[in-house]
């Protein structure tokens, strides 16, 4: 799906847990997530901490969308 979205001219960031799969599929902007059943959350944390964690991942994803890339790039910092 990432490729079809990219193909129509819309930049797309793939937020996912298993980065090697995303690389194989062909996503260009990749942001690693937390875990398979909760990529954007962590049920062991408090509601507030969890939301802050989610926000930090999304801010990273938005940063990736604002960054020019020339090939597949994993934004893991």
């Amino acid at each position, binding site marked *: *799906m*990432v*490729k*079809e*979205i*990219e*193909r*129509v*001219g*819309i*930049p*797309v*960031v*793939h*937020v*996912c*847990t*298993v980065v*090697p*799969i*995303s690389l*194989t*599929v*062909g*996503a*260009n*902007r990749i942001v690693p*997530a937390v*875990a*398979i*059943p*909760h*990529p*954007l*959350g962590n*049920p062991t944390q408090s509601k507030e901490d*969890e*939301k802050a964690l*989610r*926000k930090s*991942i*999304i*801010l990273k*994803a*938005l940063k990736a*969308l*604002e*960054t*020019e*890339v*020339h*090939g597949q*790039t994993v934004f893991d910092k």
Partner: protein
Amino acid sequence: MIRVVHYINQFYGGIGGEEKADVKPEVREGVVGPGMALKAALGNDVEIVATVICGDSYFNENMEEASAEVLEMIKKYNPDLFIAGPAFNAGRYGVACGSICKSVKDSLGIPVVTGMYPENPGADMFKKDIYIIETANAATGMRQAIPAIARLALKLFRNEDIGTAAEEGYILRGIRKNIYNSERGSKRAVDMLLAKLKGEKFETEYPMPDFDRVAPNPAVTDMKKAKIALVTSGGIVPKGNPDRIESSSASKYGKYDISGVSDLTAETYETAHGGYDPVYANLDADRVLPVDVMRELEKEGVIGELHRYYYATVGNGTSVANAKKFADTFAKELVKDGVQAVVLTST
């Protein structure tokens, strides 16, 4: 006696389904689950001395650590041969089988074989490193997969000549081998051309590799004004799954209006995905589709606007052709709706 160690996931190991996908690796002496059929296919000279079982999510979330742990367990049994799976179209299982096969091959130097459906992401990732027998997309293909895996494994162990991918049933590895042919290349080429002109079947000697890559689009220049859409393969749907998106091998996607929605709750949204433990997403679907945070960022002016609709399907054994078709359709809608960027989440 040829010593074999077999690797399977928590499901085939009888430990449990998705709710147990986070179990750490463990080893059991002898055969477990599909190891029975494998043992029968391998014959009397072969003993499956141990079976290593690991949860699919645990392996994929901790790839390096899990690989090392599993390798240690395998090493202890001093195997002559290592077999993993088959994984069919189970993505995480396929990645685990491929990755552990590669690490066993690299560090123990023994032959390794696994089996997968060609669309399994593990196949593309590891087909150049190892032999992967091509299987059906579901466990109904076990009876065909096991004998093919056993046959190739024994051939590798005995150092016999390995035939072409079509002869042995493995997924093309991209390796070319020089062979003598009784006819010259020029004649073979003309024969193929004539067959093609007559509309007859012919087999190319050099299939073109399939590199379906799309170049990245330019970055978003003004995020504060950008309209961002959310898309997910994690199966987040309004409670009750109104479109009845299938829990695996999805044949459709959903388009859902989230105008006015600022938080996904257990009462309003859930996951239709059957390929991961749904407990956490059902309690709070923002953990997969971050509507709450996107709304907040919209309010704070970090992004211009969260697009009114999100799109969702279930990425669980769903064929590449279907996923491509879904996205091809909704991507055009996104363009028409003036969406400037997409955040796509996967489980």
